[in-house]
C-alpha cells in the first residue's frame, strides 16, 4: 500500500492524504469519546429497548417468557394497586414540586441578604442535601417516632395532640413529603441563589429609583428574571418526586396499608419481590411515558409563557 501511494501521481496523493487524515481523525475522536459513549449508551438505550420486549411478555425471569402482546399494559390501567400507586405518586408530586420551589425562592432571597451569621445559615440549610436519602429515612423514623420522637415532643410543647406520623395511613405520605423537602430544599435554594446573584444590580436599582416598592421590585423585576430557573426546577423536582424511592424504602416500605406505595415502589416490588418482570417493565414504561409527557408539558407551558430555557 505504501509503495502504491508513493508511486501514485501528485494529484492522487493530494486527494488520498485528506482521506487518510479524516480516517485518522475519526479514529482519534472515537478513541477519546468511544469508551464513555459505549458505556452510557450500552447501559441505557440497549436495556431500554430490551425492557420494551420484556414488557410484552409474562415472565418470572427463570422459566421461558410467554409473549402476551399489550396485555400487561391493558391490565395495568385497571389494576387497583397501580391506580392507588399512581394516586400516591401524583399527590406527592403535586405537594412536593411547588413547595420545594416556593421554599427555594424564599430561602434563597433570605440567604442573599448581607447580614451576620449568613455563612452559618447557609451551611445549616445545605447540609441535609449531602446526607443520603437512606440515612435521612432512618433518621426520620427516629424523629417521627410516635412514642419518643422529637416531633411529638415539639407538638406536646405547643399543646397539640400526639400524632402517629409514619405509622398512620392518612399521615404517612405527607410526612414523607416533608422529609423529602428537608432533604431537597438545599438544592432548589442553591440554584435560586445562583440565579439571584446573576440578576444585574442595575435592574433592581433602576426599579427602586423609579419609586417601585420592594414587593413590586420583587414581583416585576426579580421573579421574571428567575423564570428560566423555575422551569428547570419544576422539571427536575418533578422527576425527583416521581422517582422517590430511597426515602420510602427506609421509612415505610410502602405501608402502612399500602398508603405510601408509589409507582416506583410498586415497580420495585413487582420486579424484585414478586418476580413479575414483564408486568413490572410495563409499569416502568407507563411511568416513563407519563414523566416524559409531564416534562414536555412543563416546557411547553413555559415556552408559551415566553421563557426559553430548553
Amino acid at each position, binding site marked *: 500500500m505504501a509503495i502504491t501511494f508513493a508511486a501514485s501521481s501528485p494529484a492522487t496523493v493530494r486527494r488520498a492524504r485528506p482521506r487518510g487524515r479524516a480516517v485518522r*481523525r*475519526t479514529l*482519534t*475522536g472515537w478513541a*477519546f*469519546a*468511544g*469508551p*464513555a*459513549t459505549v*458505556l452510557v*449508551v450500552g*447501559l441505557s438505550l*440497549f*436495556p*431500554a429497548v*430490551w*425492557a420494551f420486549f*420484556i414488557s410484552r411478555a409474562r415472565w418470572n425471569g427463570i422459566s421461558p417468557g410467554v409473549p402476551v402482546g399489550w396485555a400487561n399494559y391493558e391490565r395495568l390501567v385497571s389494576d387497583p394497586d397501580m391506580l392507588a400507586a399512581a394516586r400516591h405518586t401524583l399527590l406527592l408530586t403535586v405537594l412536593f414540586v411547588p413547595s420545594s420551589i416556593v421554599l427555594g425562592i424564599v430561602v434563597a432571597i*433570605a440567604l442573599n441578604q448581607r*447580614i*451576620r451569621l449568613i455563612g*452559618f*445559615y447557609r*451551611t*445549616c440549610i*445545605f*447540609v*441535609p442535601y*449531602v*446526607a*443520603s436519602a*437512606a*440515612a435521612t429515612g432512618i*433518621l*426520620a*423514623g427516629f*424523629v417521627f417516632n410516635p*412514642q*419518643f420522637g*422529637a416531633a411529638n415532643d415539639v407538638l406536646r410543647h405547643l399543646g397539640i395532640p400526639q400524632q402517629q406520623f409514619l405509622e398512620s395511613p392518612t399521615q404517612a405520605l405527607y410526612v414523607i413529603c416533608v422529609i423529602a423537602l*428537608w432533604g431537597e*430544599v438545599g*438544592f432548589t435554594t442553591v*440554584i435560586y*441563589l*445562583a440565579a439571584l446573584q446573576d440578576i444585574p444590580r442595575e435592574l*433592581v436599582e433602576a426599579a427602586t429609583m423609579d419609586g417601585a416598592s420592594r414587593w413590586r421590585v420583587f414581583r416585576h423585576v426579580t421573579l421574571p428574571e428567575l423564570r428560566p*430557573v423555575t422551569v*428547570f426546577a419544576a422539571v427536575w423536582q418533578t422527576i425527583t418526586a416521581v*422517582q422517590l424511592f430511597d426515602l420510602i*424504602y*427506609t421509612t415505610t416500605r410502602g405501608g402502612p396499608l399500602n398508603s405510601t406505595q408509589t409507582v416506583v415502589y410498586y415497580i420495585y416490588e413487582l*420486579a*424484585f419481590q414478586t418476580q413479575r418482570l414483564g408486568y413490572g*417493565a410495563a409499569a*416502568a*414504561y407507563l411511568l*416513563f411515558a407519563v414523566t416524559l409527557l409531564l416534562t414536555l408539558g412543563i416546557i411547553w407551558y413555559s415556552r408559551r409563557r415566553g421563557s426559553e430555557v*430548553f
Partner: protein
Amino acid sequence: MRRFHLPFSPWHLLLMPLALLFVLPLVQMVLTSFMSSAEINKFPPQLIPTSLHLEGYRALLTETPALRWFGNTVLVSAVSVGAHLVLCSMAGYGFARLRFAGRGVAFLVIIATVMIPIQLLMIPTYLMFARLGIVDTLAAAFVPWLASAFGIFLMRQFFLALPVELEEAARIDGAGTWRTFRSIVLPLARPALATLAVFTLLSSWNDLLWPLVAISDNHTFTLQVGLANFQGMRRTEWSQLMAGNVLATAPLILAFLFAQRKFIATMSFTGLKG
C-alpha cells in the same frame, strides 16, 4: 440596598428557626449514636447524652460487617469518581474539540438517554449483569457509574468555553492530540473536574436503589444497602442505627464542610445545565 445597618435584621427571624430545623435532626442523630438504649427510649426525649456511650458503635461493628460495607462504599465511590474523571473528560474533549464521523449523532443520543429513568433500566440491566456473572459483586454497583451523560455534558460545556489558542500553540509546537489534552487542557480543567468529582461522589456514595437490586450478599453490600437492610431487621436498635447513619453520612458532611464552595458550585451547575 439597605441604607443603614440595623443591629438585628428581620431576616434572622426566618433564617434562625429554619437553620435549626435543618441542622438539629443531624445533631440529634450524632448525639443519639452516643446514647444508651435507656436514654433513647425516654419521653420527653433528651438531646444530650449523660455520658459518652459507645454501645451503639460497638454493637454495630460486632453484629454487622459495617466496616466491610464502609470499605465497599469507599471502593465503589473511588472507582466511580476515578473512571468518571478519566472517561468523561476524554469524551467531553472529543465532543467539544475533535471533528470525527458520527460525533453529532453520538452526542445527541447521549443527551437523549438522560430522559430514561432508572426504574425502566433496572430490570434489563439486572438480567444483563446476571448473564455477565457480575450480579452480587461490587462491579455490579460501580459499572453503571463509570461514566454518565451528565459528566460528558459537563466536561464538553467546559471545554467549549475554553479558549482554543493554547491548544493551537501546543499543536504548532508538535504535540499530538493526546499530549495536548493531557498536558495543556487537563490542567486547565481542574475546576470542572472537581465539580464532576463532587457530583459523582454524591451520587455513587448515596445510591440505594440500584445496589439494593444488584447485590443480595451481606458481605458485598454497600453501606446504604447494609443500613437499610439492618434497619429492616432491627427497627428499634436506635443507637446502632444512628451509629450506622453517622458512618454513612459523616464522610460526605465533613467533605462538605471543608469544601463547601466546591459542593455549592456543583449543585448550582447541576441546576444551570438546563
